[in-house]
C-alpha cells in the first residue's frame, strides 16, 4: 500500500518520511500556539489577537535576557513565560477584564489593537530585519531518511509534554473542573466561594505564558523579528477554528495534523503551502461549523 502511494506520488519514501517528520515539528508550534488561544477562548471567551505579539515578545524576551543579562536559553525557557505571563495578567486586570460582559468582538478589537501597538514598539526599537540567537543544541542525528537536528526533536518533545499536561490539567483535575464550571456559570461557581475573577486572570496569564514559551522555542530557529507573530497568528487562528474554538484536544490534534498536511503540500505543490490550511478551514466550516472537535454553543 505504502509502496503504491510512493510510486503514485513520484517521491521516494525517504523524502516522504522526512517531510512527515518536518510537518510534525512545525505542527508542534501550531499546537502550542493554538493551545494557548483555545485555553483563553474556552475559559474567558476572549479571541486573543495579541497572541502573535506575545509569541514575538517571548522570542525577544529570550534575546533580551541573553543580551542584557547573560541568561542563556535554558534559563529563558523558564523565566520568559513567567515574565510575559505576568505582563498578560497585568493586561487582563487593567483592560481585558472590563470587556467580559460585552460581545466577543470588543475583546478581539482590543487585543488586535494591542498587537499592532506592541509590534510597532518593537519595530521602532529593534528594526525589522531581526536579531541573532544561537542554537543551544547544535548538531543532530541521522535517522536514515533525514537529518534530525537535536533542537527540533527537543521542540516536539517539549510541546507534546506541555500540550498533554495542559489538557490533563483542564479536563481531568479538580482545578480544571472549577475552571470549566466557571465558564459555564460564573455566578453559581462564585456562590461556592471560588474566586472566579482571579481564576480568569490566572488562566489568561497561563495562555499568554504558553505563547511566550512558543516564542522562546522559536528564537533559535526562526528570525527573531517584530513581525514573526503576525506571520504566524493567522495560520494559528485557522488551526483553532478547524479544531473547534475552545476545544483543548481539538487544537492539539489539529495543530499537529495541519503541520503534517502543510508539510506534504510543500513537497507536492509548494506554491499552495500558504493556502492549504485556509482551504481546509473553509471546507471544515461548511461541513462542521463548530469545528472538528467543537460543540455548538
Amino acid at each position, binding site marked *: 500500500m505504502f509502496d503504491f502511494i510512493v510510486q503514485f506520488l513520484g517521491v521516494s519514501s525517504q523524502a516522504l518520511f522526512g517531510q512527515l517528520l518536518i510537518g510534525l515539528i512545525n505542527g508542534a508550534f501550531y499546537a502550542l500556539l493554538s493551545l494557548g488561544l483555545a485555553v483563553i477562548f474556552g475559559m474567558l471567551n476572549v479571541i486573543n489577537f495579541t497572541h502573535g505579539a506575545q509569541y514575538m515578545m517571548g522570542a525577544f524576551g529570550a534575546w533580551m535576557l541573553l543580551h542584557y543579562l547573560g541568561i542563556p536559553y535554558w534559563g529563558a525557557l523558564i523565566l520568559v513565560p513567567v515574565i510575559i505571563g505576568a505582563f498578560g495578567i497585568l493586561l487582563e486586570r487593567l483592560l481585558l477584564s472590563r470587556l467580559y460582559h460585552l460581545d466577543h468582538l470588543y475583546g478581539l478589537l482590543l487585543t488586535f489593537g494591542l498587537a499592532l501597538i506592541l509590534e*510597532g514598539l518593537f519595530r521602532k526599537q529593534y528594526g525589522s530585519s531581526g*536579531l541573532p540567537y*544561537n542554537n543551544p543544541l547544535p548538531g543532530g542525528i541521522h535517522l536514515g531518511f533525514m537529518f534530525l537536528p537535536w533542537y527540533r526533536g527537543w521542540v516536539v518533545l517539549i510541546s507534546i509534554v506541555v500540550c498533554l499536561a495542559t489538557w490533563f490539567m483542564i479536563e481531568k483535575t479538580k482545578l480544571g473542573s472549577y475552571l470549566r464550571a466557571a465558564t459555564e456559570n460564573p455566578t453559581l461557581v462564585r456562590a461556592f466561594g471560588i474566586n472566579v475573577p482571579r481564576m480568569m486572570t490566572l488562566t489568561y496569564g497561563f495562555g499568554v505564558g504558553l505563547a511566550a514559551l512558543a516564542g522562546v522555542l522559536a528564537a533559535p530557529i*526562526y*528570525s527573531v523579528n517584530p513581525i514573526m507573530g503576525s506571520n504566524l497568528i493567522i495560520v494559528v487562528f485557522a488551526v483553532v477554528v478547524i479544531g473547534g474554538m475552545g476545544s483543548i484536544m481539538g487544537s492539539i490534534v489539529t495543530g499537529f495534523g495541519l503541520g503534517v498536511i502543510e508539510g506534504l503540500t510543500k513537497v507536492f505543490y509548494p506554491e499552495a503551502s500558504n493556502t492549504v490550511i485556509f482551504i481546509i478551514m473553509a471546507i471544515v466550516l461548511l461541513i462542521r461549523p463548530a469545528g472538528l472537535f467543537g460543540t455548538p454553543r
Partner: protein
Amino acid sequence: MRWKALAVSAVTAFAAPAAMAQISDGVIKIGVMNDQSGLYADLSGQGSVWATRRAIEDYCKTTKCEKIEVVFADHQNKPDIGSTTVRQWFDVDKVDVVVDVPTSSVALAVNNITKEKNKVFLVSGAAASDLTGKACSPNTVHWTYDTWALANGTGNAVVKTGGDTWFFLTADYAFGHALERDTAAVVEKSGGKVVGRVRHPFPGQDFSSFLLQAQQSKAKIIGLANAGSDTTNSIKQAAEFGIVQGGQKLAGLLVFITDVHALGLQTAQGLILTEAWYWNQTDANRAFSADFEKANKGNKPTMVQAGVYSAVYHYLKAVHELKSDADGSAVVTKMKATPTEDALFGKGEIRADGRKIHDMHLFEVKAPSESKGAWDYYKHRATIPAAEAFRPVDQGDCPLVKK
C-alpha cells in the same frame, strides 16, 4: 496588519531664483516609496528617506536650489497598495519622481504607471532585471543592482570554485523568478547544471521542508533566490539541518548587510555575496555611514539606501540642467546624457535601457574572529568592473535599445 504611513516630511526650502520657472507647481516633489514596516524596512524604509534628504542637502550646498519636498509611503510589499499610492501621488499630490520601491512586483506596477503619467521612477530597492529588459521604460532608471548583476557576481564566483550543480530555493514572486532565471542562465553558461528548484510562498517562515528537498537533490550548491528575512531564515535553518556540514554549500544570491547583522557572524561566516556598495570601502562612504548611523538607530546603510542617495543627487542635477521637471521622459533622457558622479558611487553612466552602470563587488562574510567591531562584516574578494557587471545592453530585449 501594517499601516500606511504617508506623511509630508521635510520641506527643504531655499531661495528660488527666477531662472527656474519651469519647475511644475514651483516645487520638486520627491516621493520615497518602500517597505516601512515589514521584512524590507531596515534595508530600505526610513533609511532611504534619510538618504533622499541627505542628497538634497548635499546637492544644494553647491547649487542654488528652489523648493524641494520629500514625501514617503509604505507599500507593504503589495502591488495594489503601491499602485494606489503612486496614482494618488501623481494625480493629487503632484509628486514628480518616485524613488526606491523594493519588492519587484510593486516596482513593475509603479514602472507602468510612471510611464503612463510621464513622471520619473528611480529604482534602488527592487531587483528584477526585467525593469531594464522587457519592461524597460523611457521614464525609469534602475540604479543600484539587479538580478542579472547578482547572478553574474555570485553565480560566476561559485561555479568557478567548483559549485557546478545547483538547486534553487526561490521566493514565489517576480523578484525570485527573475533571480532564479538569471542565475540559472549564468550557471548553465559556465558549464554548470540546475538539478531542481522549489518555490516557497512569500514571505515564508519555515524553510526546513524546502531545505530537505534541496538536501535530497544532492546538488552541490543551494541557491537562495529570496531576500530579507526569507534569506536569514533559510540560512539559519540550513545551519540547523546540517546542510553545510553535509557537504552542500549555500549561495545567498541577495544578501544585504542588514541580513548579515540579523544572522550574526557565527551563522553567516563564509557566505559569498555581491553588493554594489559597502560602507567601509572609502572615506566618503564611512563619513556618510557615520551620519546615517546617528540618525538610524545605529544601523549602517545598505547599498539600497546609498543608491537612493546617488540616484536623487543625479536626478537633481539633470533637472537643474534641463531647468524643468515637468516632462518625465525628458528628465530621464537628460539623466542618460549626463555622466553620473557623486560621493558614494563615483563616476558612472546610465545606458539607453535605463540601467545605471558602476562596479559591483564580490564580498565574503568574515568569521567572528576576523571582525574588528560592530558592522565590520565583509572581506573584499573581487571587483567586477562596470562593463562586465551588468547584462549587455543588447541582450535584455529592451524596446528602447536600437539593434
